[in-house]
């Protein structure tokens, strides 16, 4: 009796339990397919490349998938549900000109099979002046203290013609995904024609002929053009006493002295920053060099329509020479539009003494290096743990002759 009651009760419950548990729903997640079509309708007068490299970047995870198109179309069946930034890019040389093709579709929701995405590409000719190396992550002293006074920006003449640095500007662009200036008060024309700068903008002085940069030469802009390996600074750092320009504001608490490097002009201060020292974020900024087609005003800034009290100086997009989107890590949102930089680059952390530098595309017979410039910093740049100015024996301009800081 005992055994029968117990066994019966246990059996009924076990059967019920297994029945219920076996009815669980197993809704699977499958790979999804997508087709990308490249719209070349804006390439008037510009030849089409043979194929495009199409990159699918998962916004949530940072995972990347690359495919090569057949003509203007590419398909994949290897995407998982998510939101993607899809970029199509190509590089093509013809008639002595180098063309960069780029187009991006952002935040494409892939949540069903058979997604179709059209990407409109635009093309630009390669600029002569490009960022060659940027050191923004800063580093640490032997005593493990943060040291950021040795930030620098090296700009290289990637062409076969002499160009002039006179009037070239360096600045940090405001994020196009955060700040909206559409219909902003005081803005002339369409906000989509401009790129906006919210912090300090520096300009190389000169009347147009003072600072020639020959092919294969570069000029270095240092925050503080001194020898940072000195014992009272950071022996782990580098010597910037031969930098060509520096961003000197003031002898602020003896943090910085005015060195032999030529002082850039501070032409714009949209944020109203009263700091007497200049440095860019160690997490990375959207660094841009441009040649302004009009004189830059240092007043009457434009206020963002969606971020009150955030001011910017508008610069025509067509004035931009080169731009690099330096971000914090793989899942940080981009700041720059794809036409300036289709990708992004990041160091392994902050105060890690890492710089980003451009990859070599080719070396001419005379030894002059041509650096890779596809308008995509993800592809064009790599990380170095030894920040170096004039890497790969880049030439120093003839007018830059000093050998010590002062």
């Amino acid at each position: 009796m005992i055994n029968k009651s117990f066994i019966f009760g246990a059996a009924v419950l076990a059967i019920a339990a297994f029945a219920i548990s076996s009815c669980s729903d197993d809704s699977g997640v499958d790979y999804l397919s997508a087709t990308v079509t490249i719209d070349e309708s804006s390439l008037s007068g510009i030849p089409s490349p043979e194929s495009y490299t199409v990159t699918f970047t998962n916004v949530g995870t940072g995972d990347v998938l690359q495919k090569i198109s057949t003509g203007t179309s590419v398909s994949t069946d290897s995407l998982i549900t998510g939101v993607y930034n899809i970029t199509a890019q190509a590089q093509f040389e013809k008639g002595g000109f180098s063309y960069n093709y780029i187009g991006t579709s952002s935040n494409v929701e892939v949540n069903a099979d058979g997604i179709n995405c059209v990407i409109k590409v635009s093309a630009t000719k390669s600029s002569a002046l490009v960022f060659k190396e940027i050191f923004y992550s800063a580093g640490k002293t032997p005593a493990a203290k943060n040291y950021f006074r040795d930030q620098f920006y090296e700009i290289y003449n990637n062409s076969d013609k002499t160009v002039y640095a006179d009037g070239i500007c360096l600045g940090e662009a405001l994020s196009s995904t955060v700040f909206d200036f559409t219909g902003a008060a005081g803005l002339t024309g369409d906000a989509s024609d401009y790129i906006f700068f919210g912090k300090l903008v520096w300009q190389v002085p000169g009347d147009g002929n003072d600072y020639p940069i020959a092919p294969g030469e570069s000029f270095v802009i240092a925050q503080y053009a001194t020898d940072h390996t000195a014992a009272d600074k950071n022996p782990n750092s580098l010597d910037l006493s031969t930098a060509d320009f520096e961003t000197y504001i003031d002898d602020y608490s003896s943090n910085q002295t005015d060195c032999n490097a030529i002082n850039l002009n501070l032409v714009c201060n949209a944020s109203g920053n009263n700091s007497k020292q200049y440095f860019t974020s160690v997490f990375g900024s959207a660094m841009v060099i441009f040649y302004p087609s009009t004189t830059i005003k240092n007043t009457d800034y434009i206020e963002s329509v969606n971020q009150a009290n955030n001011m910017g100086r508008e610069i025509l997009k067509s004035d931009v020479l080169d731009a690099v989107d330096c971000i914090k890590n793989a899942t940080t949102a981009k700041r720059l539009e794809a036409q300036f930089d289709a990708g992004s680059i990041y160091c392994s952390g902050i105060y890690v003494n890492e710089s980003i530098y451009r990859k070599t595309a080719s070396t001419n017979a005379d030894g002059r290096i041509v650096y890779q410039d596809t308008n995509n910093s993800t592809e064009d740049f790599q990380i170095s743990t030894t920040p170096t100015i004039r890497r790969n024996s880049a030439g120093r301009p003839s007018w830059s002759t000093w050998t010590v800081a002062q």
Partner: protein
Amino acid sequence: MIFLSLTLLPFQAGAQRHLNDNAALELNKADNLWISSDNAAGLLFQPVVAYNVVSFDYSYDSGSFHRKQSGSSLRNVNFDTQGALKVGKFQLWGRFAYNNIADNGTQFNTLLYDPFDERTIYNVADTVSSNWRKQSYEMEVKAAFPLLADKLAAGLHVIYSDKLSAKQKDPRSESSRYYITLKPSLTLKTGKHVFGVNGYYSNNFERVIPTLSNSSETQPVYVLRGLGNYVDETVGSSGLSIMYYKCNTFGGAFQYNLDGPVRILAEVGFLSHSTNVRQSSTQPLKMGSTSKSDLTCSVRTLFGNGNGNLNKVTVSFSDIKTDGTEYTSVWDKVTGEWEVRSQAVMSTYSTLTAAVMYDRYILEDNSFKWNYHAGLSWIDKSDEYKLPHSSFSYDNILVDASGFRRFVVGKSSLLTGVCASYNLNLSGDYSYAGSHPSSPLVRDWYPHDINILTSDYYKAGLKADYCFPLKGKINLSVSGDASYLYVDASLDRFYIRGAVALIF
């Protein structure tokens, strides 16, 4: 304080026997089918003999046999007081417990008090070996009272818990966790049969603040997605913000009790847990959510052969399933908020268990002279990350046995016992196909844990408990136990515990 005062009340007139040692307390609970069910109302028809216990114990275990998220050594100081009594028509049981825990040498858990809770799989991990300091306060009370003479009873079981924890090395965190559980219940008695039903609601909340003691050095961490998949993040500067884990649980259970020479209690219960994880309160960002379901069944049977023996057989089964949902959010600059654009169930976790336990008591006075125990349990774990497909699974059988002898010397008693168990692994594997095959999670954490969970091991232990009258009906118990787990020369763990208790 109410619970403490209840537990310190002297023995109430009307109770049929006095429990004067831990063996008697154990028999008291073993003899009551309803005390360990979710239905408090059943206590009215089968009351627990009144008792009070105040205990203090210290335990320590250490060894290489541990999962990465648990420590190489664990120290726990515990204060516990509990008791049962009848007040008027109310049958009451209450407990208060305080634990102070030092968990040393843990890894891959940056945030959570309990990293093994499957409701909170969207944790954050780091590779730094760190210590944790934890405190928990738990109070619970069961009350049963008649609604209709000897036919219908109502009951309520309330549990409140507050837990604090702090990670001791960068990246650090401070966690505050609380939960409250309510189980209202009803039982209906018809002759020898009692039918019961209870509801279940629990609200669980954990708030974690990631911090650094050295703010000049940010720390890299991994925001977990499951089975080795993650997203990079940092703690410090503008990195990880405050994390919030919120869980609501609904459910209930049915019970059937048969009284007589053979007493049976069968119980089927179901719980549904829904947990949401969010980062930051000013710009909330969904980090993930889980949906967990627990199905549990048990049958407990008590019978004696009329010669002063009590036999107890317990058969139990559980099926626990968890789905992990990931979200992709995009910052909307117009609204200034994170907007969810995509979500999908990307991982599933399944745990099946079954167990059969047999206990035999040779009774003596209000306690037992001998206790024999044998048990057989099985666990099947199967976790999966959907795409790219990764899996983590194991299948084990555990056999355990123990024997206790109680010696009576005058008014004192000495309980001694031995126990042994053997765990046999049937299968187990971890495979990873994601985009971070060389990360520390995939190379170190998961392979280490699957090795622990698929180990065959032996475990043996001893226990001694000496109890003597202190004053009046108050008895003092001094006890200790130790056990040793062995896999091989490089993988083992020992455990020791000492306790002092007042029983009255």
